[in-house]
């Protein structure tokens, strides 16, 4: 190859390399989102992450404690620890009865006093799941609808026009929803101010809230089919 040709080819190579680098940078840049948070948002995020970290540390501590118990104890005591942790887990999932202070919510029909034809109102699955989502958002810990404990895998479905929870019909109105929470008054205030109430009213239903010192929630008595659950990141 002649000298001049060599240099020419080299310059072309330089250009190509530059183009490829820029292209690579552009495409890899697109994947990461632009950070447009201001300092307060960043601070809040930091705070949230720190709280999450604390939470995780606590959990790790508890798990470590359990492991330690296992290692230290004799086989009989180990069995007890196992039973204990099983109880804790069952309690968490909702496989056991639960008592506590909370909110009793009654969904009742409203009858209009004119003579127009009115069908008996019923709670649609959509409305019910929205209501339950809202309860969960505002700090409900355990919920039961009628006699059905809401667990993490409780289905709320429409079966031939009737609303089913845990594969059993909820029945006709009035329906009682029991909610256990650490701060019932706050939950009540939130729910009373929520727009979901208007939607219930539109469907000729009203919601009554009642604070209760002692509520008993039934246990979730279907088998847990966990095959449908999938692990998620984070």
């Amino acid at each position, binding site marked *: *190859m*002649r000298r*001049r*040709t*060599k*240099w*020419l*080819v*080299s*310059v*072309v*190579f*330089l*250009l*190509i*390399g*530059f*183009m*490829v*680098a*820029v*292209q*690579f*940078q*552009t*495409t890899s*840049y*697109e994947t990461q989102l632009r950070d447009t948070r201001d300092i307060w948002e960043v601070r809040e995020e930091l705070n949230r992450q720190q709280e999450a970290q604390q939470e995780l540390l606590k959990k790790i501590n508890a798990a470590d404690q359990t492991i330690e118990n296992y290692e230290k104890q004799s086989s009989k005591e180990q069995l007890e620890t196992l039973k204990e942790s099983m109880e804790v887990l069952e309690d968490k999932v909702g496989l056991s009865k639960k008592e506590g202070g909370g909110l009793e919510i009654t969904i009742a029909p409203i009858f209009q006093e004119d003579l127009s034809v009115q069908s008996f109102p019923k709670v649609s699955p959509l409305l019910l799941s929205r209501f339950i989502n809202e309860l969960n958002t505002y700090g409900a810990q355990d919920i039961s609808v009628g006699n059905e404990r809401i667990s993490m895998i409780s289905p709320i479905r429409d079966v031939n026009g009737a609303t089913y929870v845990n594969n059993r019909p909820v029945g006709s109105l009035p329906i009682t929803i029991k909610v256990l929470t650490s701060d019932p008054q706050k939950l009540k205030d939130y729910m009373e101010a929520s727009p979901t109430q208007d939607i219930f009213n539109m469907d000729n239903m009203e919601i009554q809230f009642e604070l209760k010192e002692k509520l008993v929630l039934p246990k979730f008595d279907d088998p847990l089919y966990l095959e449908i659950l999938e692990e998620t990141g984070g």
Partner: protein
Amino acid sequence: MWLPILFLLIGVTLGILTDIRIPDAYTDYLSIAVLAAFDTLLGGIRAQLEKTFDDTVFLTGFFFNVSLAALLAFLGVQLGVDLYLAAVFAFGVRLFKNLAIIRRIVIDQKLLMKIRKK
């Protein structure tokens, strides 16, 4: 042989260090330009192996292909047709063809060497 590779590395580092990013609307142009550049490159290697390399042809080919590809992408955007796909297709096919020819030439040379040794 080492000079072009050295320059390629210099180009890549320069591109990464300068931190240049193309706006979203122009990424199509750049990607197709890169494709055209690769096509020219392989064409040049093939010509070198076939002993028909000419630096003028190589240089004009490079710039002409890159700008034609960008022009085609531009035209496609104006017309609302994804014309740049045509360029991607054409360059892709040529890329494979050139690669195949290069491979054949290299293999042939090696085979010839072996036969001669025998």
